[in-house]
């Protein structure tokens, strides 16, 4: 298969994620959380809060942010950075919507060399 096309993997439909909700994508590098905003934007972040590794996918989504369920850190979905006084950043991943399908950039998802 051509590498340039295979970078984008179809992981599901936009409708599979509830508005202001999240779903998980399991990868060899750990879980990613795909968030859907009220305005139907979709963001992909590591499912790990920079604070204590809390599962961001389980948080409450508001605007373009998610609040971690463990200690209420607020993480920007656009940048992965903690908002307010907290400091730390979660890795973000590229995702796009095409004809209602969610396409995830797989280049960053290969098993890390450390493993």
């Amino acid at each position, binding site marked *: 298969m051509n590498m340039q096309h295979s970078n984008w*993997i179809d992981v*599901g439909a936009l409708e599979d994620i509830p508005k202001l909700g999240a779903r998980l994508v399991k990868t060899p590098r750990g879980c990613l959380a795909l968030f859907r905003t009220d305005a139907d934007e979709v963001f992909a972040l590591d499912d790990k809060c920079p604070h*204590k590794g809390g599962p961001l996918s389980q948080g409450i989504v508001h605007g373009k942010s998610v609040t971690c369920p463990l200690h209420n850190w607020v993480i920007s979905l656009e940048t992965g950075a903690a908002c307010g006084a907290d400091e730390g950043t979660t890795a973000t991943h590229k995702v796009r919507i095409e004809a209602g399908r969610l396409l995830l950039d797989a280049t960053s998802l290969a098993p890390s060399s450390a493993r």
Partner: protein
Amino acid sequence: MQKQRLVVVGNGMAPGRALERLFEAAPDAYDVTIFNAEPRVNYDRIMLSPVLSGEKTFEEIVIHGDGWYIDHGVTLYKGHKIIAIDRAARTVTSEHGVVAPYDKLIIATGSVPIIIPVPGHKLAGVLTYRDLDDVDAMLLAAKGRGRAVVIGGGLLGLEAAAGLKQQGMDVTVLHLMPTLMERQLDPNAGYLLQKAVQARGIDVITRANTKEIVGTDPALGPPRVKAVRLDDGTEIEASIVVMAAGIRPNAALAKDAGLTINRGIVVTPDMRTSDPDIFALGECAEASNQVFGLVAPLYEMANVVAAQLAGTSDAAFSPSATATKLKVTGINLFSAGDFAEAPDREEIVLRDAARNVYKRLVLKDDKLLGVVMYGDTSDGAWFFDLLKRQADVSELRETLIFGQSYAGGAPLDPMAAVAALPDEAEICGCNGICKGRIVSAIKDKGLSSLDDVRAHTKASASCGSCTGLVEQVMKLTLGDAYNPAAVQPMCGCTGHGHDDVRRLIVAKELKSIPAVLQELEWSTSNGCAKCRPALNYYLLATWPLDYRDDSQSRFINERVHANIQKDGTFSVVPRMWGGLTTANELRAIADVVDKFRIPTVKVTGGQRIDMLGVKKDDLPAVWADLNKAGMVSGAAYAKGLRTVKTCVGSDWCRFGTQDSTGLGVKLEKHLWGSWTPAKVKLAVSGCPRNCAEATCKDVGIICVDSGYEIHIGGAAGLDIKGTEVLGHSTTQEETVEIVAAIVQLYREQGRYLERIYKWMKRVGLDSIRAQALDDTEKRAALVARFALSQQSAQVDPWRERTEGKEAHEFRPLADLTRLEAAE
């Protein structure tokens, strides 16, 4: 100019007030030295009862902290009793040998409790109720439980009895007269009071003449109190005896100094004793042939002393009518003036037996002479004002007894009532603060909070029972600028406080989160993790039939009906009604634990079994297995009914008085599934030994022989707080009904995440009792509204999800681990 030396003997509330006024009027006139026989600063003696009952701490009732003395350059000798006054040398001498010279002297030695000289009155365990040491002694004694006998059914005795009861002792009050508080109440009100006191489980014996206090056998060690014997031979066991039979002025020091003494230290209207350089002030002083025990006239005396010391020689004390209130939570009574019957007097009486309301006005020549009110005392300030002003009430007479709201046909609005009060109307009886003074303080000093008003005017700073009135005066003066409750907006998304949002949801009939955000002009597009769960709850509680729960506005635990753990796994707690389980349930739990390799199983504080470390994907399968064995969600994650903890009660326990387990199961079956502002935990104990620890729960039931004591407002988490008694019921059905009414009232009034004890602190136990217990119509309406919301709430969320609801929650969107491996 050389400062004069002012020495004060005694550091109670009256000299404290005098010094405050003196420092205001003449800040640099005197070098002040205080000798306090008690080893502490000036505190609010009126508030000792709440300290005894555990509602306040000593720190909360301190009037002048150590800093105050430093700021004003006052030398305070703590724990120094003055034993002699040398009027020739103008010095005082303390028991520790300190000699202080004076130019002016204030004697404020207060009063001493009357000890009835019956045999045994010196035994260990015989206490008085006067100062903090007495309270500490009673609290210590209360730890040993047992029975306290309080001799004296007056103000102090009843407050002591209520406090000791609240501390867990059995209490008997002995009163010499036929009815309680006969000096402040007429026999009818005294009877109602006795009923209310007895309803709290306090025994009352009137016409009780104590003959002897019986001690333990001296052969068994130092004798202490064992019982109290009356002159009719009745013997009442007692582990402590509290003498609260009255006080008398403490005039011994003044007498030794050769000052004129009658019952107290005799003073002229300028508050000077027979020695013009010596003032007497407070309970030790006798003015116009009267001695005084209530704080209002003592503070008036203090003002006169301060004015005299500051050079206002025409300041004079003239005793005026005083009003009495009992500081026992949940008992409302008010009396003022003279209410004895006499041929030339008329009376107006209102009785409402069902509501335990009694009001009696005594009139003479179209003027109010006396007021006694029991149950509903809201018009106390208004009547007292009419009485003090000696206003002509002939115009009001027909509706006078119904209070201010009906005078002139004004609407039933407490704000209007306060607005109608004249500037001279007294708001704070303890401190003699009138409405005009509060209003001008607010305006002149720009005060905006209750604490500020208390600090500057002292209004509501003593017993606190006029706090509501003071707040209404603030509201009238400040208008919208005063917003005592909603100082805190819900969150950064809005300026509205919780109460406003709830009110507007109803008023504007808002039935969805987007509607609220739009109509109430939220500053964010879809709120935040703070306001959305709150709004979701408010909408659910307001529109139980119309509102569709928004799972995306639920915290994860409520969204997936399990508790998230630090590693992202969940814990699962099935319901065990009243803490009961069976072999089948335990077997099913064991099987689930094995099958899903659940790492930890633990018993919770609420008598449930907690399975910890369940993977989210496994939750529906775990629930399916538990459902099969008949178990449903235990809601251990919910801002809702959590658990009803019980003891084994009369089924098994040799002490059990009622079927506490059965009642616990009934309560849990009735309440489960309901959403509330914060979690709700109950317990039912089968006897006052309270093995189910009901007195630290949101709602606790203590079974007694005569039925069920309903407790409310306990906490045993961040805060620790014992419950307060809401009331008594006689049947299980009535108990369930009252508890449902409480929960519904809380659902309607509680702010999101505000536990019941905080809600109770905010709205007041009385208001809860009035609606959930006393007013049967309101209670029934609450119960009906609760039942309505339960119709849609009592669905097992686990079963719904094993049947496929929200399946997306428990499945990943995609699994790329296998995909990659396949490539």
